[in-house]
């Protein structure tokens, strides 16, 4: 029998759970825990410069590795600073455990120094939360937290630990709980066989089918199974922003991604389909546009692990509650050896789909002319060439995010890492940090803009401390591009606070931290600068590219319209 203090139990538990990295920032209520972490060397603590960055770094780590990200913050402001990152993880269903220090239990409710009811504050943005009432509960509660965060539909779990629960003078028996049981939590492990049969019958009979798959396929590790199923049937597939890479984008059957700024062919195919096979996607408003005009001729099969996602915004004809992987595998076994009922109709469907695809070839954007500013799209295309489409790409939020998603081609899941649900500016850089630590031999690029980057640029210091060699590609248009675009479209180009005056000299700023920064103004400088940026994968390089601020992201769905109602450029619409 081993007697440990609460703080030592936390450190030991994290070791026993196999946690490699923990991202955090110390403070009064967390000091016993920090001391326990200091006295061991298995779990590496990464000291960030702001708690929001700790959550984003843990989030990036979780998305790239599939393991829960772990965060440690102190009470009060430490915990509230983490809130944006918790909400980001919640919206994108990312497994994360956030351990928050809390004031001593006898002070709770007294408005004590650095006291916040963080369980209350985070209640709507967590999968679950715990408050420790006695030190002896710590191992079991932490085990429950990790179990909840990483099973079923994953999500963030907050564990609030009052300082006296971690006191070094009180010791209790520690046993690592190998298993936990929660009587009210039994995530589904497979879909309903009858429903899956019904779905497969519809799939085999479809004349104009489209797969529409999302982040659930990525987080469910079901990419290979999906690729197998889609190839067997020979149907077109479009993914959500969160589902990018679940099916290789270089493949002929992949139409790219769909929705507000999705590809023309994806949105057209969805609108005209007679069957939509949705897997691990949630019919988000940025995908469906106006739900009353959504895919008028389609029957809908909806596979999701979360019953509350099914028929939430769009009613499913065949709902299937189950994990993407097992449902897809069951579908494969039912499809095996069977022929589709209407091969000639599928042929006609592909002619239509290919027609839509060809319509836009060479018309996606106007390349920059001589003497003109570089187009942001050109930067992403060049970046994709130089890194052979193999890098991890994180983004912040706005035009650069959409351009990165449109023009970098991903053939693997978990490579495009973005805040899709919450749309959190400042996400990209710390997320890249978290990924790079798990994949030191890969190129990890944060595509950002000068607006987003300035929200989390203090993390340059963290990168310096731990030698994190991420690449930062700054599409610098000296304005908040997406806000500006909406102002151009809806506010007669009145650019209310969407410009960025008094930008820092990024080169000097980066150099102040001891890193390399490059600045590019013309297209002929671009490719050599990118080559230089990616020359040494262990070196942090900041590439500041001056891009055309007038550029808009197209296609763009017309508000309140159907999926096929899109602006295609500043002058064309469907």
């Amino acid at each position: 029998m081993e007697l440990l203090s609460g703080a030592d139990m936390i450190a030991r538990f994290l070791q026993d759970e196999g946690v490699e990295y923990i991202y955090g920032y110390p403070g009064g209520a967390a000091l016993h825990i920090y001391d326990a972490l200091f006295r061991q060397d298995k779990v590496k603590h990464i000291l960030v410069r702001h708690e929001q960055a700790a959550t984003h770094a843990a989030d990036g780590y979780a998305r790239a590795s599939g393991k829960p990200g772990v965060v440690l913050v102190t009470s009060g402001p430490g915990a509230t600073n983490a809130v944006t990152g918790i909400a980001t993880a919640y919206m994108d269903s990312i497994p994360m455990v956030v351990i928050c220090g809390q004031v001593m239990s006898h002070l709770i409710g007294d408005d004590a120094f650095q006291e916040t009811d963080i369980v209350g504050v985070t209640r709507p943005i967590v999968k679950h939360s715990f408050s420790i009432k006695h030190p002896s509960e710590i191992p079991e509660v932490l085990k429950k937290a990790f179990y909840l965060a990483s099973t079923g539909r994953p999500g963030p779990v907050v564990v609030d630990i009052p300082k006296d629960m971690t006191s070094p003078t009180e010791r209790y028996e520690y046993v690592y709980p190998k298993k936990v049981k929660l009587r009210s939590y039994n995530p589904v492990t497979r879909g309903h066989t009858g429903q899956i049969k019904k779905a497969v019958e519809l799939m085999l009979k479809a004349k104009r089918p489209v797969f529409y798959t999302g982040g659930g396929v990525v987080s469910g590790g079901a990419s290979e199974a999906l690729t197998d199923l889609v190839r067997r049937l020979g149907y077109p597939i479009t993914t959500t922003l969160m589902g990018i890479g679940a099916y290789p984008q270089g493949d002929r059957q992949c139409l790219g991604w769909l929705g507000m700024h999705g590809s023309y062919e994806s949105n057209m195919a969805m609108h005209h389909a007679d069957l939509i096979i949705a897997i691990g996607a949630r019919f988000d408003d940025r995908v469906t546009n106006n739900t009353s005009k959504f895919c008028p001729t389609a029957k809908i099969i909806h596979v999701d692990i979360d019953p509350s996602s099914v028929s939430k915004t769009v009613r499913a004809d065949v709902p299937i509650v189950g994990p993407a992987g097992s449902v897809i595998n069951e579908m494969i076994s039912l499809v095996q050896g069977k022929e589709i009922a209407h091969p000639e109709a599928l042929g006609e469907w592909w002619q239509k789909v290919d027609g839509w695809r060809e319509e836009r070839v060479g018309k996606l954007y106007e390349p920059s002319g001589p003497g003109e500013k570089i187009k942001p799209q050109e930067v992403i295309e060049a970046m994709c060439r130089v890194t052979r489409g193999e890098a991890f790409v994180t983004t912040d939020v706005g035009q650069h995010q959409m351009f990165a998603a449109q023009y970098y081609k991903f053939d693997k899941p978990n490579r495009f890492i973005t805040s899709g649900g919450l749309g959190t500016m400042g996400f990209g850089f710390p997320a890249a940090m978290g990924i790079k630590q798990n994949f030191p031999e890969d190129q990890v690029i944060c595509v950002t803009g000068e607006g987003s980057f300035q929200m989390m640029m203090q993390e340059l210091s963290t990168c310096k401390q731990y030698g994190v060699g991420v690449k930062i590609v700054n599409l610098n248009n000296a304005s908040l591009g997406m806000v500006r675009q909406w102002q151009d479209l809806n506010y007669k180009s009145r650019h209310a606070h969407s410009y960025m005056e008094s930008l820092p000299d990024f080169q000097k700023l980066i150099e102040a931290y001891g890193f390399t920064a490059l600045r590019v103004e013309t297209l002929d400088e671009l490719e050599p600068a990118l080559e230089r940026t990616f020359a040494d994968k262990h070196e942090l390089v900041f590439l500041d590219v001056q891009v055309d601020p007038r550029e808009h992201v197209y296609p763009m769905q017309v508000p309140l319209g159907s999926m096929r109602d899109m602006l295609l450029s500043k002058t064309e619409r469907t």
Partner: protein
Amino acid sequence: MRHIISILMENEPGALSRVVGLFAQRNYNIETLNVAPTEDPSLSRLTVTTVGDDRVIEQITKHLNKLIDVVKLVDLTEGNHIERELMLVKVKALGAARDEVKRTADIFRAQIVDVTASLYTVQITGDAGKLDAFLQAMAPIGILEVARTGVSGIARGDKVLSL
């Protein structure tokens, strides 16, 4: 349509706030709410009445089921059920009204549980409609205070909500 949802949930701090918070967060209605521990001290039973179309009610039950603290739930309005609410009312009872209150209470099978020189405290049990009717009958006489528990309910017949 009005629905009565009964929930068995962990009798733990914070569980109630998760249920109530869910309704606020997702813009659902709470008409009445009633909660107390059950014969199993680890479980509380919470009964909520809410209004919504089928789609909304389906979402409410799905989201409630997703809460880790919710162990089991039933929409009582899906089948035959018994629905009760308890109400305590203080009404003016002076002069002729003193008899009138007593008579009306008898008609409604209500009991007078406390008496002063100037008022009666009446206890009445029934479904929400009956309680509303009693209040309507008392209104001309003068209602001084009302305390209602909110609806509690149970399914008719052999159906049992338990673990």
